[in-house]
């Protein structure tokens, strides 16, 4: 499910099935050297989370990405979001990010960190294959959280 009206209606009707929220955490970097890299990471993160949503549509709701800059980044962001989503009825909340600094929260939050892969230079079929490979790496994380 995506965060749009038709899907949200379905979520509210079927809360016992759609019990997982995916929250992409995206760092925006506007520095001369970092901007291109950060946009590439964002593109990758969005393609991958959309692909995960497509595969597990009936159990997952993909939220719009939470973006922050170096200065607006807040350490309490994920814990606050998690609490609010739990109150809304989600059982598991999974954060997907390319920003390595979140891995230190791994102990008490479900954080999946992935090194960004530059998809922009790739052919469509190669891109599809890479996303499938990446998905295969994410699936064990998901099933671990679900059992």
């Amino acid at each position: 499910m995506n965060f749009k009206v038709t899907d949200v209606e379905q979520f509210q009707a079927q809360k016992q099935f759609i019990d997982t929220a995916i929250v992409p955490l995206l760092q925006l970097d506007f520095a001369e050297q970092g901007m291109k890299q950060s946009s590439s990471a964002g593109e990758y993160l969005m393609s991958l989370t959309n692909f995960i949503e497509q595969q597990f549509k009936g159990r997952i709701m993909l939220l719009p990405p939470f973006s922050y800059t170096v200065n607006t980044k807040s350490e309490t962001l994920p814990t606050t979001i998690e609490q609010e989503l739990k109150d809304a009825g989600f059982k598991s909340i999974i954060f997907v990010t390319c920003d390595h600094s979140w891995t230190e929260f791994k102990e008490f939050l479900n954080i999946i960190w992935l090194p960004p892969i530059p998809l922009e230079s790739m052919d469509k079929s190669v891109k599809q294959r890479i996303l499938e490979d990446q998905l295969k790496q994410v699936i064990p994380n998901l099933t671990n959280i679900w059992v």
Partner: protein
Amino acid sequence: MSKNRVTRRQFLTYTITGVGGFMAAGMLMPMVRFAIDPILQTKEEGDFVQTSQKAAEITEVPVKVDFSYEQTDGWYKSEVADAAWVYREGDQIVAISPVCKHLGCTVNWASDPTHPDQFFCACHAGRYEKSGVNVKGTPPLGPLDMFEVAENDGFLMLGKKIANTHSN
């Protein structure tokens, strides 16, 4: 000069009829074109999409065939990626849509080790027979959709989605 030379009156009558005829045609032609437009419109829905799967290489074991088509949403055109599970049944090719009938996840062939001959949906453990018919007692309430199948130059082509023709 010949005997039946054209009089001024005749000449004017012919000219006006001719020019008037052209003008009337110029007005009527677009009207007629508009009126019969629905017939001339090419039907986009139901067109077959070419895949890269060779029809001869399809076996009785379902394989995943990816394909994509263009979708127009208002003025925004986008390329939509879709997939089908394709296998041979007798001399026919069957293409099953991977979209779970429960809540729309993507099902996979034999991804559940305890049921290697079924389609499996990892979200809520929904299962389907190879024919796409849902296994009773699992969450899905209906069979998986199928695609219309055709062949072109030895390659598989997939058409629009149809209801599953296998009966329970």
